[in-house]
């Protein structure tokens, strides 16, 4: 399969940076905290639901140490904390000469690449958690889609503004060339 014209055509090219040479920068360290808070909120919701169910169905009363069932969700806590930290550490973004990249995912690892001269507009958003930690989400939009094509979810506020200015300048310069 590796000998098809397609493969050779695309790979054996000159001095181009190899796929793995994209130098990903980590996100802000508070990213793990925001992920954790969001996960804990869902966990709290599910735990409440679980408690209501075992109370109403009388499941807890049926066993001699039935009250232990109420503690069952606690097992999930260390796992949640572990995965939130892992997820945050695996996220990264890279801004190169002509394109911007973002990678994420623990199991399903995705890498999205967006060239500057396909960027239609850039948006900075901050939700409540972001404001609490002083973070910003930087969103890039290309043509023909409703949602952002690439989102860098946790940057320090001044960094997001700096990056936006840098990329908009690049985008503008490119448009002037045409």
């Amino acid at each position: 399969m590796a000998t098809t014209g397609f493969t050779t055509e695309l790979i054996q090219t000159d001095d181009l940076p190899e796929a793995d040479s994209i130098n990903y920068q980590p996100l802000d360290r508070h990213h793990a905290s925001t992920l954790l808070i969001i996960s804990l909120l869902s966990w709290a919701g599910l735990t409440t639901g679980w408690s209501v169910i075992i109370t109403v169905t009388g499941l807890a009363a049926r066993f001699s140490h039935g009250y232990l069932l109420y503690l069952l969700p606690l097992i999930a806590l260390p796992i949640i904390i572990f995965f939130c930290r892992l997820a945050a550490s695996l996220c990264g973004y890279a801004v190169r000469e002509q394109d911007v990249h973002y990678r994420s995912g623990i199991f399903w690892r995705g890498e999205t690449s967006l060239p500057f001269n396909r960027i239609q507009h850039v948006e900075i958003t901050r939700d409540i958690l972001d404001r609490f930690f002083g973070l910003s989400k930087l969103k890039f939009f290309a043509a023909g889609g409703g949602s952002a094509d690439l989102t860098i979810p946790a940057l320090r506020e001044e960094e997001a503004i700096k990056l936006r200015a840098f990329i908009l300048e690049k985008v503008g310069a490119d448009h002037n060339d045409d």
Partner: protein
Amino acid sequence: MTDFSAENQDATVPGSEWQRLSPMSVIYFILRFVVGFARQGIQNLAIFGGIVFATGSNRLGMIVFGIGVALVVLLVASVLSYINFRFRVNRNAFLIHRGVLQKKRLTLSFDRIQNIAIKEPIYFRPFGLVTMALESAGSASEEVNLAGIDRRVAEELRKAVLARPAVAEPQAAAVADALSNEDSAGVLLHHKVGELVRYGLSNNNMWVFAGLAAGAISQVDDKVGKMINEWLKLPESYIASLDTITATLLGIATLVALFAFMMLLSVIGAIVIYHDYRLSFEDGRFLRLKGLFERSETSLPERKVQALELKQPWPAILLKRRHATLLQVGFSNDWEEGNLNPKQSKFIVPSLTDENTAKLVSHLYPDLDFGGISFTGVNPMYLKRLFFVDWASPVALLSVSLSFLATPWFLLLNLLPALILPFMWLNYRRLGYWSDGRYFAVRTGLIGHKLVLFPLHKAQSVKVTRTPGQRRRGLATLTIKLAGHKVKIPYVPDLVAKGARDHILRVIFAGHTPWM
């Protein structure tokens, strides 16, 4: 009265005063209200039906009164819509004021206009009027129909608007010639009715009709349902008296009849929409003329085509035809998942022979060797995933829970994935990709196939995803996003996916070819 030629643009622009549409446009507004009402569903009618039935003895009077009121309301609303609809044209924009209760003011600049379609509905034909549909690059709420303007005015306006960014101004006369004159070099297609019958038989719209019919039946009132049941009672008792073989044959015959009926609807639909289909290519744009009751003329600049989709459903293989769609920029979220927008801006070229397909491709992508496309298949892991992850596991889970809840017979459901394994295999065999470094093609399908073909510089962004299973085997899923479309190729070698990504980024950076 209106002249928009280039010399005149600096002088006072005629047509710059506020204008109304022709009074005949009231017909258009009436039809639009009726269609809008019908779209709300048969539920609306059910409400009225309920009112009528509730009134008891004086039914006829109520019906007549109800219809009378509806007609008066419809007429008044349409006339008010007509009176409140005004437009004017300044040097680089359409200004439109419309709306009765809620006034809307819209400025639609020429640059934002993607396409202008001139439609000639049957009720405008005696008056020499047309509908001019302005398709903008913005949201659907910015689409404007100027219904009921003079044909010559519409053509001049279209010429003025579409000619603006282009270097060479296309000659309107030449365009008209190209469409009416068979011998002109630019003519790509001229479909006779026979060809449209082929299209009707071989496209998948039949199933759309079947779906609509099922939807309509499910909406029908209980009363009507009872009536149908009573009507069906006779054959039921008749069937009960038959032996098994005859009953089976009768059942099959009914199915065949239904199938034939759907086919017939599909053929009629194809003829109504595509009657006297003419397609030509002039000055970098495709021009299309079609329609039985409503002749519509559409022009589509070649550079606005994002990708070419060639479909060959299984009936089309028998008829040796392909159906092409020129994909334009889509602006709806639905496009994200590859769903079709109901208000789609799709440019369909039906019923192409191999020769016509090659001709169309060569106009769209002159430097592409269409015959030389040969697809590379994906890794067999794709088939395993289809079988185990997408089918066997969910079915096993479902059947086990159902067998606990109801009867163990549900465990037989587990045979289902094995039964459809041949189809999964077909799907796996069809899936393939190809590129020559400038163009990219993806093929999908079961028995028939769909091919999406696009130049790499039309790409907007690229995504490479790897699942744990793919990582172990050095595989990846490559997703290329175009404006309004997305192609996804799972289970390709990791190196190919990343190589493709780097190549696309380089093409976009170095090429400077605008994607639109």
